[in-house]
């Protein structure tokens, strides 16, 4: 065979191959993300109602004006922000601590890893039902009984899910419990891929446990940490199942979220256009938060 100038043709071929390989994913992205979003954007400018025999009309920004002026929706946005602001740092920190704990080379550690990961496998609906029982009001509710026991009756029994101040923290607590295992596994994988030589080198330089953690573990875990924080943020904004099952947004909108309000609008009141406007607002909020986060903490290139 005669060596020829294959540089350009091969590149073109690669381009086609690349496009072919990317096509299924791109088609999926287009079909299931871009098109529905375009539709939502379009619908949000109309007055479409599911099943209505009336003509659908273009109403401009009216749905947005209504949604943004609605105190319940404002509360939903606030709740989403609060939820993310508490859950993301707490859950990530907790996941890191758990990952460090189960990274010890001790007998039976597999059992603990499995136990901590188990809630992630359970469907949220099931977890929510179980926690509803845990939060049962009255002195016989499991959490109330536990609190009473450890404080020797110093804490009066609470009705967690029907208390304006406690309902959202209660949802946060169960969400963290349910989700922390996933982050733990990601961080555990990160921990185990840190080369042992780094610790040995640090030890020879007489770095203590804390110093090793501070200057070896944390920098090496940077990418997994950024990843888990990002994913947790997006998941935190999507919070819905717990709210739907445990509180239905109550008491007095204390636990309502944007997703919950959108689902209520379309499936309870058939207000498709209004729900579309809510999801568009939601999209831009999440986009903004993600952009800010990306700008603040960049993942290092090698993994990205």
């Amino acid at each position, binding site marked *: 065979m005669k060596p020829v100038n294959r540089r350009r043709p091969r590149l073109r071929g690669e381009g086609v191959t690349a496009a072919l390989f990317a096509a299924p994913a791109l088609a999926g992205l287009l079909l299931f993300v871009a098109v529905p979003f375009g539709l939502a954007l379009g619908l949000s400018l109309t*007055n479409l*109602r*599911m*099943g*209505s*025999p*009336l003509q659908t009309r273009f109403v401009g920004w009216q749905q947005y004006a209504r949604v943004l002026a609605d105190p319940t929706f404002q509360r939903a946005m606030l709740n989403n922000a609060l939820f993310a602001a508490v859950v993301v740092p707490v859950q990530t920190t907790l996941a890191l601590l758990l990952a460090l704990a189960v990274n010890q080379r001790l007998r039976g550690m597999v059992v603990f890893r499995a136990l901590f990961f188990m809630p*992630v*496998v359970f*469907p*949220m609906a099931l977890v929510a039902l179980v926690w*509803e*029982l845990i939060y*049962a*009001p*009255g002195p016989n509710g499991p959490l109330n009984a536990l609190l009473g026991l450890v404080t020797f009756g110093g804490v009066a029994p609470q*009705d967690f899910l*029907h208390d*304006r101040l406690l309902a959202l923290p209660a949802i946060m607590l169960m969400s963290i419990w349910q989700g922390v295992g*996933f982050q733990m596994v990601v961080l555990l994988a990160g921990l185990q891929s840190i080369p042992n030589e780094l610790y040995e080198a640090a030890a020879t330089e007489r770095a203590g446990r804390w110093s090793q953690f501070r200057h070896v573990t944390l920098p090496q875990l940077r990418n997994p940490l950024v990843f888990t924080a990002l994913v947790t943020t997006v998941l935190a904004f999507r919070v819905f199942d717990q709210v739907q099952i445990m509180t*239905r947004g*109550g*008491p*007095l*909108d204390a636990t309502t979220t944007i997703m919950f309000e959108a689902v*209520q609008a379309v*499936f*309870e*009141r*058939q207000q498709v256009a209004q729900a579309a406007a809510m999801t568009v607002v939601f999209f831009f909020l999440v986009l903004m938060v993600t952009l800010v986060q990306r700008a603040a903490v960049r993942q290092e290139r090698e993994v990205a």
Partner: protein
Amino acid sequence: MRSALFILTAWCAALAACKQEQPQNPAAESVLRLQAWAHAGREAERRVIERQVRAFNRQPLTADIELTLLPEGEYNAQVQAAALADGLPDLLEFDGPFVYNYVWQGHLLPLEDYVSQELRENLLPSIIAQGTYRGRLWSLGQYDSGLALFGHRSMLERIAARIPAGPDTAWTADEFAEVLRRLARQDADGQVLDLKLNYRGEWYTYAFAPVLWSAGAGLIDRPGCRSATGTLNGPAAIAALQRVQAWIGRRGCVDPNVDDYAFVGRRVALSWVGHWEYARYAEACGDDLLLIPLPDFGTGTVTGQGSWNWGLTRRCRDPRAAMRFLEYLLADEQVLEMTRANHAVPATRSAVARSALHREGGALHLYVRQLAEGWARPRPQTPAYPVMTSVFQQAFDDLRHGADVSSVLDRAAAEIDRDIRDNQGYLPQARAEP
């Protein structure tokens, strides 16, 4: 992880659906198979309707029924989605007060041409009232509902409470408050009333709209159904719901009933609930069980009515055959078999007369009196109902948690009125035949 689980579930559901659709009698090709959708209900009800469909199909007729059961949690959403996809069945069951919206949307066929005079006269007036909209009959139910208070006789006798014999001698709201106070004094935790706060969705409207009606208020101005402002947020409505709020509040007497065991476990003396709890309560209490009308908030006791109804959709391929199925369901044997399973009130006078529980002297006769003597009222007969009930449920949930009643009702009324404006008053639509 979760999406994988979802796909798996969806796949299993699809498999199950395919299995259900296997024709039971593949040989009979000339027989028209009419699709019927019904709510899944409790297991006892489900077994009855499935058995009745099987029995109907065994008759040598020109049309069979193919039954699909749907969970009732998001029933209306499923109907709306099917309508959007032009996939409604021939026969559709739905929760009573949604009929007016379905009529407005143009999904139903009027029934009066197919209902015999004999059947019409045999039906309880409440069934006709529920199914009638703008002068035409659109739906029929096999049974109607009953709403009242169940009580432990022994607990009420201990405080020497007067026990109302019928709706005409119902407790006044003040008398009821006094009964609650005296009961609470005898009770360890002071919680003596169960309002089924563990229920969700339609329960709030079904159970507590009667409070408004009894107080001379309502969800919307009747009969025009044009505006909620002034009716839902008027002084009578505010006063009545403030009373209910006071029962529930911190120093109130309502058991939150998280475990749904308050009445059966004798934690409370009174339970504000519908007919569906009779079986469980009767088993737990025996002769100690009493049925008492709801208290009178000013204009006499008023209670709720309405339950699941059948209608024919515009897509129905053979209305006469479909109607034969409804007539079959409304025969005494079928009605009684169903009401023995769910203890609802039989929809026909002849079936009531044959039901030991419901006829004069029966434990549930109060329900029949309420329906037949006009103490029960259908929920607002307007296409705005689905939005109205959603808004009222939210409002009730807010006031249950201590919100200011007046401002909650102001907001709810404004929201209902806005929806009516958005829909240009829900005026009748001229719709071309499909």
